């Protein structure tokens, strides 16, 4: 197994995986929160637009979205963000992952909003807070706390879904795994083990931390 680490840059590939995960998770959190606000807003049009986004994106295969980011945006529309080929693909993979997982973040937050009793919003309105202030001060802080566990699940799924980025040539773990398997078929089992254990090391703490946080930050009623 030591051979794999000396012959290939395994840690570097996991580094790319981590970068993809962190950046697209931040993007997904921002976009997902905005879509969730649209879905709980009293404006009918925004409501429908949010629902359309979630149902369209959530039900589309991720591979399709990632490949479209490459062929659609970079090749056909010429929307390059960098002259560096690898960097360009990394950025577009991040964008694709962020928009895809935003749909799941939105639904996680909406389940969090449902844990907040209607009386909380009424009380917020009754002291004269605007819709935006009620969201910021009362609804969302409680919704986020109620959504920690489903948000953690989404983050774990996102971490593993970064492997799809290999489809457009991002040099993350799944890409390296394919190379290693082609070069060293004699080490097939160690290769699988290294990758599997690597992902468990990345995702296990997420589950532990979110379980701990969801208990610690739970809103007592």
């Amino acid at each position, binding site marked *: 197994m030591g051979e794999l680490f000396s012959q290939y840059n395994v840690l570097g590939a996991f580094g790319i995986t981590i970068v993809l995960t962190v950046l697209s998770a931040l993007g997904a959190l921002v976009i997902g929160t905005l879509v969730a606000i649209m879905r709980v807003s009293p404006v009918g049009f925004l409501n429908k637009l949010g629902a359309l986004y979630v149902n369209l994106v959530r039900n589309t295969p991720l591979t399709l979205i990632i490949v479209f980011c490459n062929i659609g945006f970079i090749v056909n529309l010429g929307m390059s963000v960098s002259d560096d080929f690898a960097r360009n693909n990394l950025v577009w993979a991040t964008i694709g992952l962020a928009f895809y997982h935003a749909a799941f973040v939105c639904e996680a937050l909406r389940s969090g909003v449902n844990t907040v*009793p209607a009386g909380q919003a*009424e009380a917020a*309105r*009754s*002291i*004269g807070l*605007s819709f935006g*202030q009620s969201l910021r001060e009362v609804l969302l802080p409680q919704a986020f706390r109620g959504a920690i566990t489903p948000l953690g699940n989404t983050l774990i799924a996102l971490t593993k879904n970064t492997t799809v980025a290999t489809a457009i040539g991002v040099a993350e773990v799944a890409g390296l795994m394919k190379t290693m398997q082609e070069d060293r078929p004699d080490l097939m089992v160690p290769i699988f083990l290294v990758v599997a254990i690597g992902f468990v090391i990345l995702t296990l703490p997420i589950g532990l931390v979110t379980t701990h946080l969801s208990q610690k930050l739970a809103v007592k009623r």
Partner: protein
Amino acid sequence: MVITGLNKHFGELHVLRDINLTIGKGEVVVVLGPSGSGKSTLCRTINRLEPFETGSITIDGVPLPDEGKSLAQLRADVGMVFQSFNLFAHKTILENITLGPMKVRKKSKADAEKDAMALLERVGVTAQANKYPAQLSGGQQQRVAIARALAMRPKVMLFDEPTSALDPEMVNEVLEVMTELAQSGMTMIVITHEMGFARRAANRVVFMADGQIVETGTPDTFFNNPTSHRAQDFLGKILSH
């Protein structure tokens, strides 16, 4: 505050029928009536948590605004106390009270906290200022809810069955705060089943049934000589136990 010709439906159900009611400054009006008579809906309509179809509500001669900023402003001037307290569960008692003054009235944190502590003193829960709502008893929570509404310095206070969700031994501590408030000259509309409070603190009793105001009068007249059959029936049922 003047309410004229107010009508509201929930789907097919006609919950408020031609409500006309004028409430003077400093007046304490207690609304009584059987469940489902539209009392709570009336209360929620006054600060527009519920929309209505026809009629008008004016406060100090200004009609109730429809939407947006001016509506939020109106709600700030109308304090509301709910049956289920509805304190903000993720904020401390002190933060619950200072939120409105800081965000809506744009008070500084120091000023808002000073006022909040004075109000907590008035309702008798100063010791709990840094606790969370779930750590307080129902009676304490409801007194905090009254302080939260008062912190906005409202022109009118609405109470929507404030003691109905409380354990019996906690009812009095809340009613005492309300009685003290009534004596201080606050304009109040109180929906309650507490007949003792109605007798003690109300200037006027309004009896509602089936979405209509059936009878109004001073507590004395209403409790001793109710004129309508519905009110006699209602009082006969509740005063016999």
